[in-house]
């Protein structure tokens, strides 16, 4: 896909999401009572921001369509990126937090597994790295849980 097309699609999706967000602001503001003790009221800023967001979204769509019509290419996207690795790290992060929050998994083993998995996803996969990341994860989790529990009186996981 050409960069101009990709950027246009991204801008149109962004504008649609922003417009949906603006609609949420209007819906939420409609539920608020009218001002009683002061002229502005609680609903004013959501309405002002909602209007501004819709205005910017419309400009964005118009500009994106004009750009597409002119066939202009915007600045090139970074090359050589592997979005799968970013996605894998994100999934690992969600699983890690879910394990701590819903699974009530203890912090030290969960963190050790998370650091090892993430390190191997981002870096080179080898037995040496596996051992290094596991050791880093273990030491880090022990240090953090000690600081949180002993000094800050916070219990995690």
């Amino acid at each position, binding site marked *: 896909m050409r960069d101009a097309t990709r950027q246009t699609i991204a801008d149109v999706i*962004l504008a649609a999401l922003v417009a949906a967000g603006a609609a949420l602001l209007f819906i939420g503001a409609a539920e608020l009572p009218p001002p009683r003790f*002061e*002229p502005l009221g609680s609903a004013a800023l*959501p309405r002002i921001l909602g209007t*501004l967001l819709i205005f910017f979204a419309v400009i964005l769509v118009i500009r994106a369509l004009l750009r597409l019509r002119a066939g202009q290419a915007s600045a090139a996207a970074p090359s050589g990126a592997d979005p799968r690795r*970013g996605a894998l790290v994100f999934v690992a992060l969600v699983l890690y*937090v879910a394990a701590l929050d819903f699974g009530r998994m203890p912090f030290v083993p969960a963190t050790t597994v998370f650091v090892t998995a993430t390190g191997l996803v981002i*870096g080179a996969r080898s037995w040496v790295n596996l051992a290094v990341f596991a050791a880093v994860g273990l030491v880090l989790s022990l240090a953090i849980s000690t600081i949180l529990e002993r000094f800050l009186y916070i219990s995690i996981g």
Partner: protein
Amino acid sequence: MLDAFLALAEWQNLLFLAVGTGLGIVVGAIPGLTASMLIALTLPLTFHMDPVSAVTLLIGEYVGGISGGLITAILLRMPGTPASIVTTFDGYPMAQNGFAERALALGIMASVVGGIISWGFLAGMSPALARFALQFGPWEYFTLVLMALVMLAVLSQGSMVKGLMAAALGMAFALPGIDSSIGQARLTFGSSAMLSGFGLLPVLIGAFAISQILRDAATPQESGRMDMPKSKLPIYRSDLGYAPKLLRGSVIGTWIGLLPGIGANIAALVSYSTEKQLSKEPEKFGTGHEPGVVAAESANNASIGGALIPLITMGIPGSVTEAILIGALTIHNLQPGPLLFQNAPEIAYGIIAAYLVANVLMLMLMWGAVRYIARIVQLPRSGLMAVILVFCVTGSYAVNSSFSDVWVMIGFGLVGLGLEYCRVPLGPFVIGFVLSPIAEEQLRASLMMSDGNLAEILTRPYALLFLALALITVIWPYIAARLGARARAKQAEEPS
């Protein structure tokens, strides 16, 4: 001021300042990691510290974070922070020509001198400016916040519409929760979890750290070969000849730092260009010319002192890092602004004193340990990213001992990533989030004072000035483009 220096001399404050500066230098030297990310990550730790110690730690991180960038800029041509991009122009060629130690020495020296000169402005101007700002009422504050937001949005990189949209989006995300002026839930849609709104820290950590790491994880790491500095860093008596250049760079950096949204990288670029224009041998710039390093490094460090002036005197952030510092002060129940000098002078003067001492500590740490810092930078970043993610999770959790904040952080990580993908700048988004409650509070107070009469603003000259500046910032790019086109057309029409 003397009291602030005495408080700073207490061992724990000095230790926090040294740790902050050291951490900042290391993080600043690692390309991709920034001072704002470090400050956001260490902010949860400061909850349990006294405000003076917290502020010294964060100021140390800020100064170290900007200064550390020069190490990789010179040795690897990979600026650790955007502020050091200009340092690569002459610093890297110097290293390639076998003068890495000399480039590092000049860069460190210029950074320190830039910091000290801008400290002079910070210490000299801030109390007077704060006294002046005491005359401001809610109208002035509202328009000042509006002007800062508009300037940040318009001057941030990329499209102006996207910058303004980012600021409005950030403001919108700050709306849910209990509306403090009427004590009623707003935009919570019946969810009790939303009653406290989105916490500042989860939003900051998510938008900056998480999105940055997810982006970095997807990007192949550049592995440049680094020539480690071998001998001592040389400095000569003849370097005193650089005094005018240092002064020029520092003054440029300080004044550019004062303006919201411009930043240390532009300060370095303007200083570099000025030096090149004034030079008798401009052709040498870009080939490993010492004045190039001096101009860039003195200006980027001086911009910190400049940016701290509106922060402590008016509560206006010049960049994301200052927005996080405002968040840090708010967390400690301190309101940055002119009253800070009256209500918490130990903090206001503490920031000023910490800034000077952090520069001195930065000199000592970088001069003595630049070789070791360069080695740390070469460690594989895969493990580092995993470690930072764990800090993000524990930092967000520690705010309220709640995993809701961690989920909010992950959500804002995705928001940040999405915005960056669509080339929407994150700076105005975060600053809009931080400044939204202040803007709304001041607008409400203004309208209450004037019985809902908007025309009251016409009787307030400073408020009108701030509004006019905001308006000029928005329309100037169009006027400049129109004037440029007209000048080009006129030139084309003229017979050659």
